[in-house]
């Protein structure tokens, strides 16, 4: 048992480091991650350039076939590169939806023409993709989506509203699921499309979150015409295609970013309680140790997963564990960081609130981390059903025609 790379891994890591050293700057020691940052036009331009540079150097599309510009590499290479890249100041990653999800799905369900059209521009950072799945009335119950796609000649006419779309305001393309047949059970009446975001009738509005920032968009679709050639998979196979895509998501949802154990530990050493650092207080210690054990537990769980990958095994449900634990931990740490400041906890001026009000800000975006990418409740269900093989929740609507399913007051 050790933490060493295999010789192949070590060689690849050296290669990655060499590339990164040549093209990026190392982060300083106490750089602060935030789980809530909106990207501006400059971020997008820098991101596109950085993605292009990585793709040119063979550090993108690790799983992709070489013929589309990929590396035909291993999962471990992707992990190692991410580990190394994390240490550098690089532009935000906005290509996960395209390179990590959309294109792999197109490669497995799409036509050769679709692959040829979309693969390289995505990989080389020229085109950004987003995902038009969730709707105001279809979140955890994704298959309950109501956006209507009606066939009209060679086109489909789409009407509806999508929500919680990251990056929609600067994406060129979207993966869209719409209901093509409301008369059959809900999973059977969906069809999957590639949507050009410049199509008339696509109206993107940014959503203002609790924190005041806007990381997500809502997208209104009014008589949006999509050529049938942009359909991905068969009519009515939308659910199957979406599941193919979401299977790729599992690897990408990870820990909630924001203040973690090290940060609250640092705060507890800084803040004084009754003339002694807060870290000396037994009640503070109890909480700190709890978060330390969770943070370390997540870290070593991740390393166990990577070991499994490194040995060619399929990893387990670690991503669900990481998201479930880290989102709650983030909210607790943020709240505690605020509590530690006593009467000034509610002050957000960076002059008064330590670390530029990092904990206060985290408190405002933490609730989203427990919702986006699968709520706590959905994740517990996933663990119970997929890992522990417990029975699925009862569903009244499973075999019912979609338009007969009770939908409550509207």
């Amino acid at each position: 048992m050790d933490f060493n790379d295999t010789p192949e891994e070590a060689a690849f890591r050296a290669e990655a480091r060499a590339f990164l050293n040549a093209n990026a700057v190392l982060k300083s020691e106490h750089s602060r991650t935030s789980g809530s940052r909106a990207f501006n036009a400059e971020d997008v331009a820098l991101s596109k350039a950085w993605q292009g540079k990585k793709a040119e150097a063979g550090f993108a599309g690790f799983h992709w076939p070489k013929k589309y510009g990929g590396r035909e590499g291993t999962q471990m290479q992707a992990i190692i590169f991410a580990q190394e890249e994390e240490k550098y100041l690089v532009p935000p990653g906005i290509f996960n939806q395209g390179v990590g999800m959309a294109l792999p799905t197109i490669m497995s369900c799409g036509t050769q023409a679709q692959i040829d059209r979309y693969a390289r521009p995505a990989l080389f950072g020229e085109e950004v993709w987003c995902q038009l799945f969730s709707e105001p009335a279809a979140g955890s119950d994704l298959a309950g989506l109501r956006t209507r796609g009606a066939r009209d000649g060679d086109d489909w006419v789409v009407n509806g509203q999508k929500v919680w779309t990251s990056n929609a305001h600067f994406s060129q393309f979207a993966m869209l699921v719409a209901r093509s047949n409301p008369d059959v059970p809900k999973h059977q009446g969906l069809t999957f499309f590639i949507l050009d975001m410049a199509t008339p009738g696509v109206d993107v509005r940014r959503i203002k979150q609790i924190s005041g920032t806007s990381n997500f968009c809502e997208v209104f679709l009014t008589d949006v015409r999509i050529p049938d050639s942009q359909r991905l998979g068969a009519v009515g196979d939308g659910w199957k295609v979406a599941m193919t895509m979401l299977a790729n998501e599992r690897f990408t949802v990870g820990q909630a970013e924001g203040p973690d154990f090290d940060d609250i530990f640092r705060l507890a050493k800084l803040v004084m309680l009754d003339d002694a650092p807060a870290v000396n207080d037994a009640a503070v210690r109890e909480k700190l140790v709890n978060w330390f054990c969770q943070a370390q537990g997540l870290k070593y769980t991740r390393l166990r997963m990577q070991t499994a990958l490194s040995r060619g095994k399929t990893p387990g449900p670690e991503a669900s564990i990481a998201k479930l634990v880290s989102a709650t931990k983030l909210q607790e740490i943020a709240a505690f960081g605020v509590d530690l400041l006593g009467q000034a906890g509610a002050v957000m001026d960076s002059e008064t609130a330590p670390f530029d009000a990092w904990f206060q800000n985290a408190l405002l975006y933490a609730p989203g981390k427990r919702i986006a990418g699968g709520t706590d409740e959905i994740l517990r269900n996933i663990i119970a059903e997929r890992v522990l093989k417990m029975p699925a929740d009862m569903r009244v609507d499973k075999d019912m025609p979609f338009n007969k399913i009770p939908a409550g007051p509207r």
Partner: protein
Amino acid sequence: MNFEFSEDVTAMREEVKRFLTKRLPTGAVRHQIETGDAFDRELWPELAGMGWLGVAIPEAYGGAGLGHEALCMIAEEIGRALPFVPFSSSIFLAAQAILEFGSEAQKQKYLPGLADGSLIGTFALAEGAGDPSPDAVRTEFASGQLTGRKLPVFEAAAAHFAVVAARSGSGEIGLFIAGFDAEGIARETLATLDIGRPAATVTFTCVAAEALPQAGNWSAVTRLLDQAAILFAFEAVGGAQAAAAMALDYAKSRYAFGRPIAALQALKHKLADIYVATELARSNAYFGAWALEANAPELPAAAAAARISANEAFFEAAKENIQIHGGMGFTWESDCHLYYRRAKQLSGNLGSARYWRNRLIDRLMTQNQTAAA
């Protein structure tokens, strides 16, 4: 056994509730906050006009003289409706301080204005992070003048004056009234987590001030904190109940998988636990109301238990209200975050839970009895 609010008080509370529900439909408070003003200048005189600001102020000073039980009930409705007004600073703290520690002349000078809303007060104790403590009070009162820096002072921009804790020449901590129009005052707005309860840093440089003569040492401050803690506990109970009700309504109307999500056991049990926590907090707050009204020796322990359980229930309800609303609850356009912000504001405004836990245990250690009645 008569452990319940009187019918008069209950009727008044229903009136407050009806008024605020109608006056402040969903979104109204948020829109008011978004104006950027210091408080809702239209609503404030309306509340005063109904006699609700002065409900616990004796009739001799322009109030209704209905006592603190009535004020507790109003506090609960304030917590529920979250009106954008400086009710707690002006009434729970400033008016209470003057009522308790002021001279007859001071009562006559300030209380009628506080009761009719023409005068708004606040309380300036904190000087940065940390819990209430005489050692943390560095602001000084000498030769009739205050010098120091208070932070945060809630609703300072709305207020005309503050009751300020400061160290006098004798070294004892006292309470002093300083007008915000006096020379030497500087108010600097702070960004706050709770956007519905703005705050400022107030700097006093040789500001003329008058002492509250009955507030001769630190125990006056703790007594004021105890009294206010009970009123804020009712605010938190109201907030907890409102957030839980919001979650419950949403869960019943939101359908997934062909059923309301309220049918899911995960949600049923979560909301049952929040209900239980809120009911226990309510009962502790009731005991606090009794202790406040009766000026009972149990006041400090009752205040601590009421505050701690109410703040915990409120934060849990507010936090899970967002969770149950899912993505919607995480948007600015939903009112969920107003409760979440307020819950956190209340958990620190009079000192942290740690401070109140220590006060409670220390009290239980000395009184060697765990409860009265």
